[in-house]
């Protein structure tokens, strides 16, 4: 099983999920993949399906309409995985608190491992977040 752990750490695949964000964090996540930051040099790859993902990047506060879809997507992600809440809204709903259509921050619905606050976080901070998530993989293995 060592080789799986190794490859997961060396080349984590990410799935990006927008649960009602304003697109800022989403743009920054795509930005991280484009030439300026190019996280593919670390083997990080954005995947089209949650079934292929090791890292789930969640942006935005959870809206009522998205709630059940978020649960479903999380169930589809193979375990072990890490969930990174990107942005202030995903961490704590930010300035949308108190709205009728907001359920709450992401960790109210699914467990979150790493938070990246910022509105939006700089792409560098998102890279830090993913790096921190990989540390978690390492810690899990030694358990």
């Amino acid at each position, binding site marked *: 099983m060592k080789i799986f752990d190794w490859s997961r750490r060396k080349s984590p695949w990410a799935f990006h999920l927008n649960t009602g964000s304003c697109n800022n964090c989403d743009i920054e996540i795509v930005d991280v993949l484009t030439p300026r930051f190019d996280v593919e040099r670390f083997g990080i790859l954005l995947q089209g399906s949650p079934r292929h993902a090791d890292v789930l990047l969640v942006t935005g506060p959870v809206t*009522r309409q998205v709630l059940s879809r978020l649960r479903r997507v999380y169930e589809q992600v193979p375990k072990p995985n890490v969930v990174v809440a990107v942005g202030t809204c995903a961490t704590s709903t930010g300035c949308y608190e108190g709205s*009728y*259509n907001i359920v709450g921050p992401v960790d109210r619905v699914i467990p979150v491992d790493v938070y990246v606050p910022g509105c939006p976080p700089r792409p560098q901070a998102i890279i830090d977040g993913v790096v921190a998530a990989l540390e978690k993989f390492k810690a899990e293995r030694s358990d």
Partner: protein
Amino acid sequence: MLPLTAGSLVHVLSNIALLIENLRSVLGDRFRKHSTRNERRAYVYIRKDGIRDCVRVLFDQFGARLSTISAVDRKFKFDVLYHFTLDQEGLVASICLSTPKQAASLDSVTDILPAANWIEREIQELFGIKFAGHPSPGKLLTSDDWPEDEYPLRRIG
């Protein structure tokens, strides 16, 4: 907002006057009053049963574009403003009407002006103003499990 040059001001003002005269003649006693805030904003107050004729005049004769419809909760009634833009003149003509809160309803204008489709659906969802004759009054914005008779932007009391 910057003032217009003298020449274009005359042009715009004559257009506003023409528009209002037209509306007055078509609507008859359904036309209440009008006011012009400045050379870019005109408000026309009408009775709520005149909206379809009003839209016909604006859209077919004057080539106006529907920008949006705003509903405002005013305790016992809803004010509904249809904001039309006349692009050539840079003018926003707002057609103002109101409907009582109890059994609030208006005539749908979607069949004359397809652009009103989503806007009317949104108002129906958020304020509970029914649009009679709307072709597809389904849910657009609120979630699937949102209760039928609750309207988020309607104030209580």
